[in-house]
């Protein structure tokens, strides 16, 4: 491998991991070490910060659980709604299908944060606030454009004969979807599911405005609350520990599913 390339790779790794690794380092530093990093201190390392985070009220793992719950329910809801819609989109006449796809693309590009106010009113009027299951509804809605676009592309890649053969075997629409069409797009479905899950897990403004009950907070909102105290105090060790704990599930997710994530995003780019 040429040396020049090796240099770039190292730079990339340093850039990508650096800030996170710094958090890792900080989380194990005692308060004294944080305040005087270069001085030689007798007690450098400590687990106190982790203990503080894990023993807080509500406990930290609660946030992870909440995010997991919302992530899973959003993903399921999104797929249940987007799969039939994506199939239907492939069967529409071109003069409807093309503008529909453009609209979906526009919706996918739209900065959804601008919608928070209206969604807040929806939450208020329908009493959907402080309810993790209800939170998956706006998440599923916001994920529809991307999900439908990715799944439609996958359906369109299937040979037309297959559905004809399935029809002649006596399979009605829902049977064709269940036994033939949906199983055949499993890779695309997986990619979509992961992307939706990531979105739901990381979403902030809506979770912020819909949920105020401390025990129901999702991870991003909980982290922001931790940060909410004055900028000038120094519990940065605890912050760092929280950051590390909050990052672990996602790092694992990315490392395990990276092929799926990449193929989902790149196929979306190529066909979009």
């Amino acid at each position: 491998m040429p040396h020049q390339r090796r240099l770039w790779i190292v730079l990339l790794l340093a850039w990508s991991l650096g800030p996170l690794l710094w958090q890792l380092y900080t989380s194990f530093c005692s308060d004294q070490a944080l305040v005087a990093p270069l001085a030689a201190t007798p007690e450098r390392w400590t687990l106190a910060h982790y203990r503080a985070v894990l023993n807080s009220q509500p406990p930290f793992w609660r946030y992870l659980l909440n995010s997991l719950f919302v992530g899973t329910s959003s993903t399921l809801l999104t797929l249940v709604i987007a799969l039939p819609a994506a199939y239907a989109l492939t069967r529409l006449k071109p003069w409807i299908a093309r503008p529909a796809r453009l609209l979906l693309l526009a919706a996918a590009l739209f900065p959804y944060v601008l919608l928070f106010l209206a969604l807040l009113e929806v939450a208020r009027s329908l009493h959907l606030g402080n309810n993790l299951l209800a939170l998956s509804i706006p998440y599923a809605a916001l994920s529809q454009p991307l999900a439908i676009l990715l799944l439609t592309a996958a359906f369109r890649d299937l040979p037309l004969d297959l559905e004809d053969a399935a029809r002649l075997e006596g399979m009605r629409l829902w049977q064709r979807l269940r036994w033939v069409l949906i199983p055949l797009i499993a890779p695309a479905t997986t990619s979509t599911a992961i992307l939706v899950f990531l979105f739901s897990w990381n979403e902030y403004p809506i979770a912020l405005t819909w949920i105020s009950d401390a025990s129901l907070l999702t991870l991003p909102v909980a982290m922001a609350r931790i940060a909410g105290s004055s900028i000038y105090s120094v519990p940065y060790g605890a912050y760092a520990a929280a950051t590390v704990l909050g990052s672990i599930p996602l790092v694992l997710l990315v490392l395990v599913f990276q092929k799926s994530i990449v193929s989902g995003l790149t196929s979306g780019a190529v066909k979009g």
Partner: protein
Amino acid sequence: MSLRLSNIGRRAGQQWILRHLELTVSDGECLALVGPSGCGKSTTLRLIAGLDPADEGSIELGERDVTRLPAVQRRIGMVFQSYALFPHLSVADNLDLGLKIRGIAIQERRRRVNDVLERMRLQERAAHKPAQLSGGQRQRVALARALLRDPLIYLMDEPMSNLDAQLREDLRPELRQLVLRDQKPVLYVTHDQHEAMAMADRIAVLHQGRLEQIGTPSELYRDPVSLFVATFIGRPQINLLHTDSSSVLGVRPEALQLQADGLPCRLTHLEWLGASQLWYLDSPQGTLRMVLAADRRVPETIRVGWRPQDELRFDAVSGRRHR
């Protein structure tokens, strides 16, 4: 009379891709549908199967009018050109799926699937996925699936076009025997006239969405109703001579003979076909193709003629044959 098409028509936009099609296929009969690309043969199959709706006319299957019946409810056994096997399922599951959907109990399903696997000699491949099979094996699976449907009619859309020539020849008799065993009607689409003549009891020639002629291979050969049929059926292709502006004279290469009083010709090319040979001749009337026995020598002077009863005369404008 197990299939009857009456005045069938299908449109694509404003264009008619099929019009005024009348066709019957009886139980235990194999009818071949031949014609050049785009003549409407695959469309016809799709209409019978219910995959596309007919814009005109009616379709009767087994004494029942199925014109408005959705494809899932017609009992059709179709073998697609691409075989359309479900790639994510094993051979056994491919065959099982249709039965499962139709609510057949698991013991019975297993019995029927094993039965057909044995019949088609696919037992060893039962657990494999389609991608792991050869072309011929995939075709057998597609056929097995159609057999399991216990259909009212078998529709075959160029089922052998993806196989190499040798395999095709080997499979022809087998295929024909298999589908005719249960005495159902068979509609066989192909662009290969040899295959049509080998597989079918009758042949229907389609041209630009219309039925040109329907009859036994021998009828089409001896008694073509139009120029198109005459040139489509018979290899090497019939010789066409433009004697005058209003008619075209056709003489088959096999009908040409060396005659002392015939047209003087010059040999430009010779093809040896095994049992016979094909001569390309230059004559005052244009290029002639002539078929002779393999042991005939090329004479010094070539003079070629034919018996008047071997002549086929066609109208130069309409292409229809003068009887």
